[in-house]
Structures are given as C-alpha cells and as structure tokens.
C-alpha cells in the first residue's frame, strides 16, 4: 500500500481497505504530477472536481449576465414609458435620449432577448448544470479515480471558456450582438443587411457556439466512457445512482445531436460568407434581389431543432437525476420505482429525437408530417408523468428534512408539473395553431426547463456544496432564497399563460401598436417587478455561495446527510484520485433508506446474511 496510511479508528476507511478494490492507483506517482502548482491545480486542472467547480462558477457568471439582461428588457416591457436614461452609462448608444427621456432601442431589445436565450440555454443550463454535476458526480458516484480522459475534460472546460470569451466580446461591438432570436433562423441570421445584429454579431455568435459544440462533445464522450468503463467493482449499471443515469443519457443525447447543430451552423456560415444558398431562396432585401436561390429556410429549422429538442432534455435530465437523488436522501426513503425511473429516462431520451418538428407546426412544413410529431410528442407525457408520480410517492411515508436542497427538489417537482402540463397543450398541433409563438410558450418553457432546471441546479448546489468546498452553505439564506424564488417564479411566469391565451405574441418590443395586445399594462408591470425581486434573490444565492466557500459552516463528518452513495466515502478534502487507498466496492443499490429498521445502508456495505437486496422486489 506504499504511502497510504489508514487510521485504525476510522471504521469506513478500514472497511474500504478490507473490502475495496485495489487498482494500484497510488503506486504510480502520475497522480500528483498535474496537480502541482497553482496553475496546474486551479486553472489548467485535469481534476474532475476542480473542473466541476470551474463549470459552476463560470455558469454563475453567465447566469448573472443572462438574467440581468432579462431585467433590462423586462423594464422595457413592464414600464415602456419610463425613463431609461440612467442605463446610459451601461448601455451607451443603445439608449436613445429624446427630450431627456431615455428609451431602449428596439435593435438592442432584440439583442438582449437573443443573448438571454443563448446564454441561459447553452452556457448556464447546459454547461453550468450538466458540466458541473456530470464532472463532479460521475467519477465520485461510480467509484472512479477521475474521468476516463482528464485531458479531454480540461479541454472541454477551456473550449467552453473560449466560447464564452467570444460571446462576451460580441456584446461590446458597435453593431451589437446577434439579435435574431436564440434559434438563429435564417434568412434573418444569414443576411447582414436584414438586421444590424446579423453582421459581426452573428459571426461571433456562430464562432462561439461552434466552440461550445466542441466543448459539449469533448465532455460528453468523456462522461459516456467513464460511466461505461470506470465503474467500481460491483457497480453494475442497475446499481448506478439516478443522477449518473441522467448524466449518461444526457451525454448520449448531446453527442448525437450537437453535431447536427454544427452542420447547420456550417451551412449558415457558408451562406453568410461563401455565397451558397442552403437556406436562401427568392429573397428581395434592401432594394435588391438576392441572386442566390434554391435553398430552404426550413432546412435550417430541421437541423436546429434536431438538436434543439434533445437540448431541452439535455437541460432537464440532469436536473431530474439530481432531484431524484436529493428527494430520496432527504426523505430518507428509496426513490420510488428505480427501474421505472431509469426506463423513463431512456424513453425520454429516445423520444426526444423524434419530436423536433413540434417546434415547426406553423412554419410551413407539410401538415401531414405533423401528425407523427404530435403523436410522439404527447407520448413523452407518459414517462414524464411516471417520473412525477414516482417523485411524489417517494415523499409518501418519508421522514423529510426541509433543508435548502430538499426544498428546491420539491419546488422542482411542482415546476415540472406546472410547466410539463402546458406542454400537452402545445404539443397538440391543433392548439399550437393559436398558441405558437405567444406568451403561453414563453410561460411553458420558462417554467419547465428554465425554472425547473434552475431548481434542480440549486438543489444540487446546496446538496453537494460540502462535497465541493468542504463547507455548508448558509441554510437560513438558502430557505429565504427558495421560498422567495418559488413564489416569485410563479408570479413571473403564471400570468404569462393569460397573456398567451389572449394571443399576445412573444418577442414584441412594445404592445402599443395593437389594440388586442396593449391592455395588459398592470400585468406586465407585475411581472417585471416580480422579476426584479427574483433576480435580487438570486444575488442573495450568489453571495451565500461565495461567502460560504470561505466562511461557511465547516463539514466535520464525511457523510453529513447519511447518504448511501460513494461520493460521501471520500475524505472531506479529497485529493487527486478521490480515495486515498482502495476504491470502495459496491454491494447494493444506492437507495437502501429505512430498510430493515436501519436509517440508511451505504452502497459499500455488503448484504447481510439472508438479507434481500432492496432493489430485488
């Protein structure tokens, strides 16, 4: 065993030493080579725990920017008459001052809306959520020393970082960032003469997101390989904790769908720069007929949504996995219907590939094709419903601790129900005729994949914060954060259903032109005020987060929650390789809570004589 010394009083360490699996990791000294020095340790780190923290903190940075943008455009929507001149120091020429009254320019309004979507969907809820927790939890929960390729893992973060740098730069150029919506539909995105944001802003958007695709692919291939190949002894696929299943399927979805998006981006780049016309046909713009014909803008929509739809599951599956784990741990009960939960993740993952055109019911595709997409889309409701009922049943008969992680997990279930049910309206093409591109859609996806995914992320951060930083976040502030955000998020998005049912279209800079849309002033004010309050509460979270890294309550025991999974068997300050000696072997599933009169039985504990395995019912 070389240099590893085991404290004989540490029962867990002794047990791992006795029953664990020896991979001879510590006999080679490669482990500490790339951890030495500040740069190697904290910046160009190849340790999955550091990379997880890098993803998380970068995600928080982008979340503040993306959410801050939404506050600015909500001010425009809620208080269109108000003076915005005070924002001039920040926004410069995008605030036009007439007679002393400053107004947000429509061009920049659309740029803000576009950037808000792009940043939140890709940088925060993909990289910040899946990037953080896949990195942190996959090796720890499957019982691996690190990712299969720590180097690719490091590259994955730095490509993401680079994508962020390019996108950040695009915010400051004179023509403004891209402003054609986060979906980037051509011809608006393909022709610089169509919109100021479609010039350099769009070029940078494409460059940034192409780099981002590289990041996702490098990360994804790593996650998949690690889950398939680096599971510890005894950890069969059917013994994996649910977050790992979720991250695994998420990575598969990303690996299969992001390249399709990249192909769409490349064609768009060609259309913009090389005179091709994949997406352009019969266009007359700026007083001139475009000489390129023969393409179809709808082709881009197919390519985009072939990623775009799996993308929403790339966002929500990790949140589902995290929530499943947190609910189980803090209800002190096994997750209800583990097998059904795994199968529903797989079913959702599979179905997510054959529903993409439900985003395109009204875009001119053959209405006959929509029949199939309606059927597949509504089938997704079935595995989703199974998950919801299983989460609720997990609470039934539990012994629930309402810490911040658990509160956010319960909030997630509520949000997922509320937002998921409106999906049943929108997935039915007949209803979508009226609801498409109205605020009903805005309400739907913000609740189901915006707020719900954030709740999953918060739940995970509060829960695994001690694992990341060896300290706890402040619970009081966490609970304020939760209750305020739960109430506030519903205050923001619930009324938007009514706006949508009144026919109000999304992406409107002002509603005054239309008599049908302009009589919701008080509601829009209410939404904006709620948004500002909720934004303030998120800053509270950020303060709590950074404060607790340095000053939070210290973690004094390895397994503070009494959880079964392997991440709680590592030392509080886990070094490179995660376990100082052997890797614990696994003998049971992760959900033996309350079994046989014991509060919890961790995965590394062998089955007692005559004991029936918890998952063998």
């Amino acid at each position, binding site marked *: 065993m070389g240099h590893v010394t085991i404290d004989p009083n540490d029962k867990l360490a002794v047990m791992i030493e006795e029953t664990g699996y020896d991979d001879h990791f510590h006999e080679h000294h490669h482990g500490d080579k790339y951890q030495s020095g500040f740069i190697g340790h904290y910046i160009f780190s190849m340790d999955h725990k550091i990379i997880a923290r890098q993803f998380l903190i970068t995600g928080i940075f982008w979340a503040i920017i993306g959410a801050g943008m939404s506050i600015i455009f909500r001010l425009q929507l809620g208080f269109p008459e108000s003076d915005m001149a005070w924002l001039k120091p920040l926004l410069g020429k995008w605030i036009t001052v007439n007679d002393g009254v400053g107004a947000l320019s429509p061009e920049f309004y659309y740029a803000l809306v576009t950037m808000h979507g792009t940043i939140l969907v890709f940088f925060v809820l993909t990289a910040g959520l899946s990037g953080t927790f896949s990195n942190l939890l996959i090796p720890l929960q499957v019982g691996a020393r690190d990712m299969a390729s720590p180097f690719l893992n490091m590259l994955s973060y730095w490509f993401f970082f680079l994508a962020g740098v390019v996108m950040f730069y695009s915010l400051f150029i004179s023509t403004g960032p891209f402003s054609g919506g986060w979906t980037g539909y051509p011809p608006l995105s393909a022709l610089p003469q169509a919109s100021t944001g479609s010039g350099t802003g769009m070029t940078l958007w494409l460059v940034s997101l192409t780099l981002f695709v590289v990041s996702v692919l490098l990360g994804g291939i790593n996650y998949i390989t690690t889950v398939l190949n680096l599971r510890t002894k005894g950890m069969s696929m059917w013994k994996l904790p649910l977050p790992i299943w979720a991250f695994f399927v998420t990575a598969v979805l990303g690996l299969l769908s992001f390249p399709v998006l990249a192909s769409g981006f490349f064609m768009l780049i060609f259309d913009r720069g090389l005179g091709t016309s994949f997406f352009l046909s019969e266009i007359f713009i700026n007083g001139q007929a475009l000489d390129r014909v023969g393409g179809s803008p709808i082709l881009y929509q197919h390519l985009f949504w072939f990623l775009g739809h799996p993308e929403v599951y790339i966002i929500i599956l990790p949140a589902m996995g995290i929530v499943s784990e947190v609910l189980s741990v803090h209800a002190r009960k096994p997750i209800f219907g583990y097998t059904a939960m795994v199968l529903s993740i797989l079913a959702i993952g599979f179905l997510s590939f054959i529903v993409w055109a439900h985003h395109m019911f009204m875009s001119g595709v053959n209405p006959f094709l929509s029949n199939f997409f309606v059927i597949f889309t509504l089938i997704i409701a079935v595995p989703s419903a199974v998950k919801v009922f299983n989460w609720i049943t997990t609470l039934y008969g539990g012994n629930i601790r309402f810490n911040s992680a658990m509160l956010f997990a319960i909030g997630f279930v509520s949000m997922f129900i509320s937002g998921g049910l409106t999906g049943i309206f929108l997935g039915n093409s007949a209803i979508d005729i009226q609801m498409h591109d109205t605020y009903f859609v805005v309400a739907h996806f913000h609740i189901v994949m915006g707020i719900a995914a954030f709740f999953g992320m918060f739940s995970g951060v509060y829960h695994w914060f001690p694992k990341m930083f060896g300290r706890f976040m*402040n619970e009081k502030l966490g609970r304020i954060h939760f209750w305020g955000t739960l109430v506030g998020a519903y205050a923001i998005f619930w009324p938007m259903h009514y706006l949508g049912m009144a026919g109000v279209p999304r992406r409107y800079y002002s509603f005054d032109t239309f008599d049908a849309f302009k009589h919701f002033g008080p509601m829009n004010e209410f939404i904006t005020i709620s948004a500002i309050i909720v934004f303030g509460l998120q800053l509270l979270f950020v303060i709590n987060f950074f404060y607790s890294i340095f000053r939070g309550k210290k973690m004094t025991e390895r397994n503070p929650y009494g959880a079964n999974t392997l991440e709680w068997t590592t030392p509080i300050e886990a070094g490179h390789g995660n376990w100082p000696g052997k890797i614990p072997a696994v003998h049971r599933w992760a959900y033996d809570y309350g079994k046989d009169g014991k509060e919890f039985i961790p995965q590394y504990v062998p089955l007692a004589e005559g004991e029936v395995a918890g998952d063998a019912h």
Partner: protein
Amino acid sequence: MTGLVIVAIFILLAVILVQIGRLTEVAAVIRGEENVAMATNNRNAVYMLIFLVVFLIYCVASAWFYKDRMLGYGPHTAASAHGGQLDSIFNTTLFFTGIVFVITHIALFWFAYKYREDKNRIAYFFPHSTFLEVIWTAIPTVVMAILVVRGLIVWNATMADVAPEEEHIEIEATGSQFLWEIRYPGADNKLGAKNFRLIKPGINPLGQNWEDTKNLDDFLVGDVFYLPVNKKVRVRITAKDVLHNFYLPHFRVKMDAVPGLPTHFIFTPTKTTEEYRQELKNYPEYQALSDPEDPESPQRWETFDYELACAELCGYGHYSMRKTLKIVSQEEYDDWFAQQQPYYMSNIRNTDNDPFKGKLLKVEAAKRARELKSEFKSAMDSDKLSTIRLKNVFFETGSSTLKDDSKYELNEVAELLKANPNVKVELGGHTDSTGDESANQVLSMQRAESVVNYLSSKGVSQSNMSSKGYGQSRPVDTNDTDEGRQNNRRTELKITAK
C-alpha cells in the same frame, strides 16, 4: 454617483443578510442545534401547506379575473369556423391537465407536510409497486390517446387545402420588413404570377409579372382589408426578405411566411366586425374608455377591430406589422370590392413598365363597348343629330391601315348599326397639324374610307354610310402637345339621319 450609492446599498444589504445568516447559525448553537433544526423543519413543513393553499387560490382567482380577456372565453369566442374546435380541444386539455395539476400539487405538498421529519420514526421502505406503476402509466396513456385523436382530427380538417371546385376567395399576404401587403385577385378571382426579381420598390412592390393578364385586375389594399362573412378564404402567404408569420388571433389563424416557399391558411370568418363589437359591449372590460386620457373617447368595444400581426421574429420592427381586417356582409364586401382600383391600372398602365403599352386590353375594350352603347343610345334618344367619337380606332402611323386593336370598337359599331338599319352615319377622319395640309386631307379621307370598308365587311349596309376627310381643319385640342395632337387625330361617327 447614483451608481455608487446603489452599489453601496447593495453591498450593505449583502452584509446584513450574511450577518442574519450567521446569527441564526450562532443562535442555533446556543439554543441547541437539534431543537432549532426541528423547529425550522416543522415551520417549513407548514409553509408547504400554506403555499399549497395560496397557490391554488392564486391560480383559480387570477384565471377568473382574466377570463374575459382570454381568447376562447367570455366575449372572445373564435370568429372563424375552425377556431371554435381549437378552443374546444384547448378546454378538453385544460380539463384533464387541471385535474392532474390539482391532484399532484395537493399530493406533493400534503405529503411534504405530513411526512416531515420525526426523530422517533423511520421512513417507510417502499421502493416499488408494480400495481401503482401500471396504473399511472396506463391513465396518462389513455388520456393522451384521447387528446391526440381529437387534436389530429381537427388539425387535419383545418389544414386541408381547398378542393379545386370549391367556392372560395383567395387573397395573398406578403410579409416584408416591416409590413404586410395584401393582394386581392380582382374581378377574375385569380392572383397573377409574381417573381421576386421583378420587385421594384414603389413601382412593382410585389414583383407582379404584368405579362400575366391575371395580374391586371389584382389590387393591393392600404391599412384596412375586407372579407365577407361566412365565405371560405384561402390566404396565400409569402415573404420577400426574412421569415414572417401571418397571425390573425381572433380567427385562430397563424402560418409562417417563408421566402421562396408559399404557404397558405384556409379559414371562414363567422362573425362580422360589428357582431363582435356587439358581443364585447356586454362586458365591463370593454365598456372602459378606449383612450383613458381622453374622457370623450369612444368605449373600447366601439373601436374594436380584428387585427393582423406578425408572429415570427423578423427584425427590429417585428412588433409593428399591423393591419386591420374588417369582416362585413357580402353586400358591403361587394361594394368595397367594386371601389378598388387595380394596381396595374392606376400605376403601371401605359407607363414604360407596361408590356401592353399602346395596346388595347380586353378589359378596356369591354368597358369601351359599354360606354359606346350608352353614347349611341343617348344619341338615338336625343332630338338632335349628334357625333360620337370612336376612341379606340387606331391607324398605323402615316397610313390608312387599321390597327388590329381597332376591331373591338368597330365590331361594336357594326353591331349597333346593324341593329338600327334606319340610322345613317357619316364617318369622319381628322388629323393633327403635323405635316403637309393637303396630304393630311387625303390621309383623313383614306382613313374614313377604310373604316367604312371595315364596317361594310362586317355586314353594315354600304348605303347607310358615307365617309369624309376633314384633314387638320377641325382640331378639338391644341396641336402644340403630344396629348393634344393625339386628341386631334380621331375618327368620328356622325349620325346624319335616324
């Protein structure tokens, strides 16, 4: 300075909050962490219940409050034939999802409250139940099947194209940054061909191909367009530059406008604008002033109009692509329709862009025939012997050969004269003052004769006609302008006996 103050306040607030957080931790240690944790846990369990109740009330109350503003409820029932079915599926879905929403939320928050932590209890080990899982897989499956079947029946009926023989009006909507242009097919009920390469702003805004005669009676409308109630309308939807979306919220009509790929939407308006206003009138929301600033302004229901909007992001002016649609009775529609000027006639006819410049159009010939008939009739009814100018008789320059286009007018004259065999006429030729006077005299004589010959060939008795050349002697206009000279070159039909 303000910025600095804001930052300072923000930092102060942060410090206060962090201190509160720390204080509770410290207080917890003093009072015994265990007890404080239990109290907090119980308190949060109670919050769960409170939230449940308040949330459900908030959902129902807010829906009630807004019901008269939402489409499909209160006064806002659909104004199209298919719209009611969409609203009905919406409500069926709302019914099922509403039940699920309420039950799952009650279960979620009630369980959370009921099973809050109790140190003396161990959680119930309940990992799995095939029975329950089969039930809650089966129920959503059945409900989804119902919704899918209903939805698809309506979807396919709504999206079906019109059968070729089916009676309908086809209009065309073209989106561009940032307006809609609506084109009507004119009297022939057919939209003419167009080509984006022919677009010339201000001259040919839609790129209509004027060689396609179906275009010649097509007309474009201003800010308001009309459609008759209870008549099937097929809207052909096109775009010039980027994607747009043709959106008529009150009719449940929505379809992308795609450059290079015409789309369509078919709907039948079922309520006139006036009927819709009358329905709104009964609701307090619409009895308010249309302009709250102006106490003299009409009530909201009085100013209601159907609106056309854009529902696909198309650039910075996306929010302003408004047009008004008026649904009227068939008679009012016909009146309005009759008043519209074809774009070609008012903007293109006889300009350099007109491929038929200098040529007579069938529609013009037909119109002239009606005019001629009535002029002839009033000449017959009159006591005096009058002269009718044959406006559409043309000759090759400097020659007495009739142009082909003259046959419409002359055939009509022939018919009139054959129908009135007692009428005797003199056909007089006139020229302008260009060229030699005596040559003009001869030319006018020859031209009059060639008209007589033509009419005779069409069966008018030679004995009823005479011809005379007046040369340039009787101008009706100045000879100094092109237009004046054109007026002076003319053929006249003078009735000499009846």
